[in-house]
C-alpha cells in the first residue's frame, strides 16, 4: 500500500460521513452515495483495475477514463442542484404569496 491510498480513503470516508450527518436525503440518494464511495475505494486500492477498464474502453490510462467520466458527471450534478434550487424557489414563492394574501385578508377584516 502506498501512503496516498489511506489518505484518499480517509478523505472519502469523511465526505460521506459529512453527507449523512448534514443532509437529509432519500434512500436512493444514499444508496448512490454509498455505491460511489465503494467504487472509489476499490479503484484507489486497486489502481490496476482502473487501467484495465480504461484499456477495455480504449482510453489508455485509468486516470484518463476518470477524467472523461467526471465531465458529464459534474454536468449531471450541476443540473440536479439547479433543479433543486428551482424547486426551493417555487416553494419559497408560494410561502411569500400566501403570506401576502393572508395579510391582505387580515387588514381587510380590521377595516370592516
Amino acid at each position, binding site marked *: 500500500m502506498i501512503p496516498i491510498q489511506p489518505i484518499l480513503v480517509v478523505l472519502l470516508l469523511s465526505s460521506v460521513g459529512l453527507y449523512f450527518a448534514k443532509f437529509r436525503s432519500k434512500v436512493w440518494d444514499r444508496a448512490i452515495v454509498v455505491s460511489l464511495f465503494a467504487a472509489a475505494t476499490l479503484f484507489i486500492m486497486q489502481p490496476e483495475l482502473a487501467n484495465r477498464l480504461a484499456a477495455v474502453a480504449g482510453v489508455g490510462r485509468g486516470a484518463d477514463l476518470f477524467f472523461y467520466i467526471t465531465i458529464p458527471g459534474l454536468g449531471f450534478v450541476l443540473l440536479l442542484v439547479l*433543479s433543486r434550487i*428551482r424547486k426551493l424557489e417555487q416553494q419559497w414563492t408560494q410561502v*411569500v404569496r400566501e403570506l*401576502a394574501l393572508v*395579510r*391582505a385578508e387580515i387588514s381587510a377584516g380590521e377595516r370592516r
Partner: protein
Amino acid sequence: MSDAEIFVIVPLYNEAAVVRETVMPLLKAGYTVVVVDDGSSDGSSKALEGLRLVLLRHAVNLGQGAALETGMTYARRRGAKAVVHFDADGQHDGAQIAEFLGPIRRGETDVVLGSRFLRREDAARTPWLRRVVLHGGIVVSGLFTGMWLTDTHNGFRVLSEKALAEIRLRENGFSHATEILGEIRRRKLRYVEMPAAIRYGAYAKAKGQPFWNSFNILIDLVMEKLFR
C-alpha cells in the same frame, strides 16, 4: 360583467414616483385595482395610502411574474370575471382597457395581448435599442412557444375568466411573458393582438429594463424547459 368584477393587476416594484398617478384613472373608471408590491424598498406602498384599492405585499422581491400570479390568485379567489395586467410605471393608457375588454365581453376571445408594433405611430415611438431587443424577444418567444406575435413583452394584456382559471404562472421573472404565450397555446385558448400605445416619457426611458435582462430571460426559459 360589471367594472368592479374586472380586476386590474398592477405589479409594483420601486415606482413610488409614478404609481399613484398610474392607478388613479383606473380607480376612477370603477375597476377593482389590485396592486402587488413586490418587496419595494422606496416606499411605493406608502404612495398609495388613502386609495380604495387592494394592496398585496410580497415580503421580499420575487419578480414581475410572481407578482402577477399573486394578483391573479387573489382575483381567482374573489371571483373576478376578467383580469387586466397593467404596468405600474405609467407606460400604458388606462383608457384603452375598455377597448381591450370589448372582444372578451363579446365572447370572441380568451386573451387580448397588447402590441406596440401593430400601428406605425406606436412603433415609431419605441426607442431603437428597445426595438432591437424586443424583436429579439419575439424570435426567442416564437421558437420557444411556436406563437409568432408582433410584440411578446408588452405588459398590457387582458385575460377572460376562462383564461384566468387555466393559466398559472410559474416563472417569477420577466420570462413570464413567454410563459403566458406557451400556456395560451398549450391550453388552446383563443387570443387576439390589439394596438397598445406605450408612453416613453423621461421616467420610463431612464428606468427601463437593462439590456442584459434579455440574457436572464433566455436563461430562465431554458431552465423552464429543462425542469418544468
